[in-house]
């Protein structure tokens, strides 16, 4: 075995060092690390689409290597360290669970810039970026309340972290603004990316009598189950219309491309700073997929709400809002603080589930 390796090393050395020769013009490396497969049809695919847009826009100045299917944990730390060592100037780590690994590696490589999606730990060379997904979920809730005959929707959730709890509450708030008695059932799949478990969760919810599905997991499996069972559903992270042409009402589409281009340009210009970005519909970091499979009046309502959120006229978390147990949370007209939303660990009234503690 050793001989073979030596022989191969020698032959590779004789070939004149491909790896160095190919990159002679010194493009900057902007690297991406994905928790799922880049063709998952959801979360990771949206990030990879952003990477491709970056490649298109600045491809003459940067290259964009990536690692996919990296499990959260020790493998993530190694993968991120490998990126830092292989000459990446800027590394985007695109899952909440990469947070501690990114923090550790960032401390080791002060000259490399890092950006962590959806996290809350920052450093001088570690920025965070996130999207106000809840704005889209509020619109979805309104559509669900209009379209559901039974007044019950099902929600496939991943982990009971504040980000996900906030999404559930926003959906329920939107639904209650149309139908005050609207109920929301939640199933915790305890995974971001597992088509089998996600499909099982979808089936369980449909068997419990929901007639609209929404998800906070990464694959199109729930959309496919909804199609098979003939109910309606919302896509997540990417436009999932291909998986449910007669099923998808709309989808929250993560459009990271513009952000990736902006930050890479800042890196090239030397103006990159560590920031904590939380952009929303108005900034274009998320967009709503075309409103389909619904009557015109519902579509008009959705578009109006979208416009109001963009203009700032409507903040989904505006009081009066009660917590699940009926106690008051926000007074009439009071808006939730960003900090409270980012640490949200309670349900609002109407969610038919016990939050795992």
């Amino acid at each position, binding site marked *: 075995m050793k001989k073979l390796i030596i022989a191969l090393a020698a032959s590779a050395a004789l070939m004149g060092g491909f790896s160095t020769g190919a990159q002679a013009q010194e493009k900057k490396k902007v690297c991406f690390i994905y928790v799922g497969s880049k063709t998952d049809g959801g979360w990771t695919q949206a990030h990879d689409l952003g990477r491709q847009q970056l490649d298109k826009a600045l491809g003459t100045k940067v290259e964009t290597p990536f690692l996919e299917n990296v499990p959260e*944990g020790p*493998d993530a730390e190694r993968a991120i360290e490998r990126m830092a060592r292989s000459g990446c100037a800027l590394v985007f780590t695109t899952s909440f669970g990469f947070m501690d690994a990114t923090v550790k590696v960032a401390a080791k490589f002060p000259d490399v810039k890092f950006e962590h999606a959806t996290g809350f730990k920052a450093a001088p060379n570690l920025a965070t970026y996130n999207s106000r997904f809840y704005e889209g979920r509020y619109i979805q809730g309104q559509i669900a309340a209009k379209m559901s005959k039974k007044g019950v929707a099902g929600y496939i959730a991943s*982990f009971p972290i504040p980000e996900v709890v906030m999404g559930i509450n926003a959906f329920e708030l939107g639904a209650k603004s149309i139908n005050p008695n609207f109920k929301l059932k939640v199933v915790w799949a305890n995974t971001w990316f597992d088509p089998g478990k996600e499909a099982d969760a979808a089936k369980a919810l449909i068997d419990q009598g929901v007639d609209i599905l929404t998800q906070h997991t990464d694959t199109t499996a729930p959309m496919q189950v909804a199609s098979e069972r003939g109910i309606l559903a919302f896509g997540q992270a990417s436009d999932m219309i291909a998986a449910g042409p007669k099923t998808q009402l709309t989808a929250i589409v993560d459009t990271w491309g513009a952000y990736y281009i902006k930050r890479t340009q800042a890196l090239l210009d030397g103006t990159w700073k560590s920031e904590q970005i939380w952009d929303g519909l108005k900034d274009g970091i998320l967009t709503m997929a075309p409103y389909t499979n619904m009557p015109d009046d519902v579509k008009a309502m959705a578009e109006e709400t979208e416009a109001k959120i963009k203009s700032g006229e409507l903040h989904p978390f505006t009081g009066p809002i009660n917590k699940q147990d009926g106690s008051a949370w926000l007074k009439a007209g009071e808006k939730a603080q960003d900090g409270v939303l980012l640490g949200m660990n309670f349900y609002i009234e109407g969610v038919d589930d016990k939050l795992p503690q």
Partner: protein
Amino acid sequence: MRIELQKRARVSTLFSVLSPLLALALTLLFGAIMFWLLGKNPVSALYSFFIEPLLEVWSLHELAIKAAPLILIAVGLSVCYRSNNWNIGAEGQFTIGAITGSILPVLYPAWHSPMILPLMLILGMLGGALYAGIPALLKTRFNTNEILTSLMLVYIAQLYLDWLVRGPWRDPQGNNFPITKTFQIEAVVPEILSSSGRAHWAFIFAIVAAVALWFMMRFMLKGFEVSVLGQSERAGRFAGFSARRMVWFSMLLSGALAGLAGISEVSGSIGHLQPIISPGYGFTAIIVAFLGRLNPLGIIASGLVLALTYLGGEAAQLSIGISDKVSRVFQGLLLFFVLSCDTLIHYRIRLIFSGMKTGEVKG
């Protein structure tokens, strides 16, 4: 013309040595063809897959981290397999070892004492051994098939871990993620040379275990007992060896080593318990054991090779942009060629020109 396998009169020593190398060469050849079909330069692809991870010190550390559990588990399994006991459930013993070893840091996070780490390692070994003791008990008492029982116990262990970290052992400050508290510093297996990389003492444990078992198999009566009972239980009985006791010995030994691998991995590499703590080390170790010809020293080498396929997949993905599935393909190719090349140890290939032969008979 046809090809026929003909049994050799005796085992070929030449091919016993050559077979793994031949398998490796064939794997590389087919890997090169695969890269070529994918439209990549095969030489640079193989270079980044198999050589690049070996060029930097930090990467060698990572190699040691990946290889340590594979070697630890595989040397234990080699004793099992040599004695004709088929423990397929090392993954489960690994998991239980990780759980029992984690009892102290999870339940007593405020206990800061240098005693904690040795106790954790001992508890991990005990847990793994006891868990392997279940199939041993079933086999010796009820004559059940240990392949089935040990394999099925894997899933029980994994689900138990899953339940623990989502339920009673979940970190209350962990944003509801299914992980336990991060272990206190005294409960972490220390790094060997922390200035140059992350490799920790598990790799040393692995090498010590491999050398110790090699010594046992080579120079001690117990090793002879393992081989004799493995080859012929009846012959072993005449020599006064007990097959029942051997079941216990080999299962408890391999379980303890798998448990040690489990707690070292959790304590040294991960730092807390989580639902998935192994990318299938317990199963990959079976490949490692056979690739190393069930010889503890050979297993050190084969463990490093298999560890390299994990790291190489990552390196190749970054530098030439091929899918991470390639490392799986390499592992599969390697096992396939190892098993098929092993045929050459017991058989020779003969080309038979059937036309001529039948002609002779008839004529």
